[in-house]
């Protein structure tokens, strides 16, 4: 083990971690405001990846240029899912919401399997093999772009929640739903908006991810547990936490993969997940446990 192997692996881990962070941001927003653990999160990411894939192979649209199409489309999808399905099935019970989102994920995963089969699909982009030379490591362009964009989106979300009127309404609803309702805030609408923002961020993640990754109907599974681990590690409802958690996990996975081999490296993430849940469920950056 020497620096010339370790450093590139860690840099790689950071760029992967940025994507994890992005996926986790949507999840933590949904949890922080609606207080639901969205099991369908990975499946929506999978659908977004397919969406970007087909936009590319069918209409020749570059994934980065697909952002203005995919993001609004998935915002609408998320809003509709929350207000059309989840809102009506919950009957207020926590367990039910868990199961509804599970049901949605089952439907999405398996319809994808049915329509698109389980072949692994990738896209070719002209810059797919370009690299940026950092001296200590070579970073593929798509990954570097993903890293930068993830940070930018995180910053945008932070601004939205912290500095705008909408953000204030969202924070009010997250903290005290009844009180917010009494203040005249349309809580159900806010819920829909937040879910929509969460899924919109997933669409952005998909656009950034596809150039350096692949899509299959099962790809959501791979991300969903990592996303949960990120959120739990960083603290439910904390953006900084999701960002930090994602980066940490990306690095841990890369280091673990280096030491233990590809598949066992994944275990590192789940073990961390279990440990955090058991010993520090509020995560590194605090937040309320369920």
């Amino acid at each position, binding site marked *: 083990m020497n620096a010339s192997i370790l450093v590139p692996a860690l840099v790689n881990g950071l760029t992967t971690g940025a994507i994890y962070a992005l996926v986790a941001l949507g999840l933590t927003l949904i949890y922080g405001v609606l207080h639901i653990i969205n099991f369908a999160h990975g499946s929506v990411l999978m659908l977004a990846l397919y969406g970007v894939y087909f936009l590319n192979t069918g209409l020749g649209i570059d994934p980065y240029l697909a952002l203005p199409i995919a993001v609004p489309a998935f915002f609408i999808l998320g809003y509709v899912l929350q207000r059309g399905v989840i809102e009506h099935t919950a009957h207020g019970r926590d367990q039910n919401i868990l199961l509804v989102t599970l049901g949605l994920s089952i439907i999405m995963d*398996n319809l994808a399997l049915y329509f698109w089969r389980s072949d692994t699909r990738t896209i070719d982009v002209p810059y797919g093999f370009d690299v940026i030379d950092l001296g200590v490591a070579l970073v593929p362009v798509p990954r570097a772009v993903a890293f930068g964009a993830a940070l930018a989106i995180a910053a945008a979300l932070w601004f939205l929640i912290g500095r705008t009127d909408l953000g204030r309404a969202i924070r009010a609803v997250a903290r005290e739903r009844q009180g917010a309702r009494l203040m005249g805030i349309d809580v159900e609408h806010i819920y829909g908006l937040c879910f929509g923002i969460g899924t919109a961020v997933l669409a952005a993640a998909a656009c950034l991810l596809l150039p350096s990754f692949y899509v299959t109907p099962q790809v959501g599974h791979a991300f969903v547990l990592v996303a949960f681990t990120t959120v739990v590690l960083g603290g439910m409802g904390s953006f900084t936490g999701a960002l930090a958690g994602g980066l940490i996990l990306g690095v841990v996975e890369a280091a673990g993969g280096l030491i233990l*081999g590809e*598949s066992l490296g994944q275990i590192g993430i789940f073990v961390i997940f279990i440990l955090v849940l058991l010993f520090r469920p509020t995560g590194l950056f605090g937040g309320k446990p369920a």
Partner: protein
Amino acid sequence: MMSDRVKLIAVPIVLAVLAAAPLALGTGYWLGLATTTLMFALLAQAWNLLGGYGGQFSFGHALFFGTGGYVTAVLQVRLGVDPWTGLVAGTAAGAAVGAFCGALSFRYGLKGSYFALVTLAFAEVFRILATSVPFTGGGAGILIPLKVSAGNFQFADKAGFYYAVLILFAISLLVTLAVERSRFGTYLVAVRENEAAAAALGINIFRVKLGAITLSGALAALAGVFYTQFYLYLDPHIAYGAGISVEALLAPIIGGLGTLFGPLIGAIVMRVLGELAHGWTGGAPGLSLALFGLLLIIVLRFLPDGIVGLIARLGRRRHA
């Protein structure tokens, strides 16, 4: 819903009907279908003990199923142990893993969504381990050599498998009935309904939950053992995959959480729907599972007490 006395009569009747089923089903495809349905009903009964009666929803029940399956497979293939001992060992392993998982989770007070997530994580950890470790055959899976004899838990006559799984299912049904009528069962339901009140009445919450997950693990492992004997092949994706975990929880929810016959009804409904979907789509993968997802959402929206609850409500309306 059903009174105690009605249940005591219903159980032998149901089992008798199930025992007579091969006469109507013949020996081919339908018998095989009934066999796997009962296997899933067994898995569902296991889940129902922890999730329905106990109110602790596990999203990773494949953890126990797969452990049972692998323990018996590995013992037979690598150590030449006979399958009936393998059955006992597999069941014990399921109980042990249940106890381990439960001790960790409940000691630290995990509930609700967090508990569901942790079970999912454990199942994934085991899946990755099974893929990476040589003695399980890794990703390629493990094959039990064909050696047909009843003593070897491989039956020439398909009916042999059917009766074997029926006996296992009957055990799970009787265990559930015994739990329902016992102090442990009452305590389990009390913990589900209201933990604070239960503790104030002298109930050791941790021990009750631990007992439930251990029992549930043992029964789920039993289903896994049967799977291994029936198909003579197991791989990490089947053993510890999401498919099993999802089927384990769908059947009790559809049939009726925390009821005696809910898991069986749910398993039958799912099988029937699965066959119908198969017929429409010509066997394309994914559609039947997608339908199950839709069924879950429909049940949650309109039938929160499952099919058993629906029957109970209709019964009450007629008597009103």
